[in-house]
């Protein structure tokens, strides 16, 4: 069963077509990677799915889950480094959902926060200011913010950019664990498919010549054979 269906999606800025007539679907439990060269429209696609660039796309985007069940980890940290906010304050914002307007967090929220920081091993960072964190720590905090609402679908935009090898490895094993054990569906934009070829099962390749959408093993086989089959 599909958690996301995209049909004939085209996205443009003024007269420039960033994405043209793209169709694909993501099933529950998938670990779905989006790859492509710089400027191929990977981030635009994800932002469009999340409604962050409204009113300039054509086609259908159908989620089988509500916005509350989707979590997003952006490519660039959008929190200003000088923001005087603690790690705990930032992570707790992940528990704010569109329909929920309670002025205070509940006990259930506090429990969700505790279990998430424990899982990501960042309990000791709780009182640190967001601007005092290293790149790897910040990424884990932002991931905690995305995960604390227990999403069914996690969307990540190049989560390893700016991370060292060790932090990258840790992040990938965590994502693999979430996908395998928690059955969380993952959509991830990635620069290097080789890093995730053993965990991810599907891939969407965007490049100037066309798109490929299918099993990651099929794509790797095509790539190994040195010729590219393009599926529109």
């Amino acid at each position: 069963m599909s958690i996301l269906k995209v049909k004939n999606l085209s996205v443009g800025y003024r007269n420039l077509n960033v994405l043209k007539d793209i169709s694909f679907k993501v099933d529950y439990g998938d670990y779905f990677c989006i790859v492509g060269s710089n400027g191929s429209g990977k981030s635009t696609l994800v932002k469009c799915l999340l409604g962050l660039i409204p009113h300039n796309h054509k086609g259908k985007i159908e989620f089988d889950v509500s916005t509350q069940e989707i979590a997003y980890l952006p490519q660039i940290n959008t929190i200003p480094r000088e923001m005087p906010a603690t790690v705990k304050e930032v992570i707790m914002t992940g528990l704010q959902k569109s329909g929920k307007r309670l002025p205070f967090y509940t006990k259930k929220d506090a429990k969700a926060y505790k279990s998430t920081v424990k899982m990501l091993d960042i309990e000791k960072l709780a009182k640190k200011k967001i601007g005092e964190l290293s790149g790897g720590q910040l990424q884990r905090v932002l991931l905690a913010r995305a995960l604390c609402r227990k999403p069914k679908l996690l969307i990540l935009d190049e989560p390893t950019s700016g991370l060292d090898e060790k932090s990258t490895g840790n992040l990938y094993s965590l994502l693999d664990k979430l996908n395998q054990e928690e059955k969380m569906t993952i959509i991830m934009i990635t620069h290097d498919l080789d890093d995730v070829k053993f965990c991810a099962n599907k891939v969407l390749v965007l490049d100037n010549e066309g798109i490929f959408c299918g099993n990651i093993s099929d794509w790797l086989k095509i790539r190994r054979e040195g010729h590219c089959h393009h599926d529109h």
Partner: protein
Amino acid sequence: MTIDMFFTILTQPFVIRAVVVGVLVSLCAALLGVVLVLKKYSLIGHGLADVGFASIALALALGVTPMYISLPVVLIASFIIMAVSQKKGVSGDTAIGVAATTSLAIGIMITYLGNGFNADISDYMFGSINAVTTADLIMSIVLSAIVITVYVLFYNRIFIITCDESFAKASGINVSIYRFLISFLTALTIVMGMKMMGSLLISSLIIFPAVTARNFASSFKSLVISSAICSVICFLLGIVLTICFDLPTGAGIVIVNAVAMIGSSIYGKLVKKN
């Protein structure tokens, strides 16, 4: 001035009214200032104050109680500024700059064509504690109750919008509504404090406390609380000093706030070095 004289002045009804109004305005301005300063939108206070000045000039020329005109006009202006600044191609400071200078020009023109610059308009420009009436006091209590209640009720939402708008949008939160809410609350605060602080100086109550508190705040919550405390202390110190030395109140309060800000910046730099 002897201590007896000082206490005699301090217990005068007009001074008590001014102190209550000032504390409420300082509190509301500091709460909103945290958000506006962090979002680099602090000049909206100045823009709305200039709109307020134009509306007061019009009210005085028409012989109407200023509040009846300034409250709706400033509220409408806050919505227009926010709506225009959300449009692509128009930045927030441009929208504020246009609204502020145009309003100031209209205000000056109305004043010139009307009765000219008199004591009333001067009070509204530079502020005066003598000008605060019982009606102003009641209105300030009502408006500040609205501002503080809404701020506390939507504190978590206000924080997420201040901290990371993109994440808030991706979480399905209607960011625009909260931007308008902040703008609306700022407009109420400006209208409340204009008579006491003066339209030229009221925006300082929004900017200074947040900048001062930022140097020693360890979290967003502590920034909000320390900004509020700092604002009220600076106001009380300012009003006491200006009464003692018979100086203009609004200007005195701004100078105390400026000194506190410089002090906290030095403290912040020393702490960073160590």
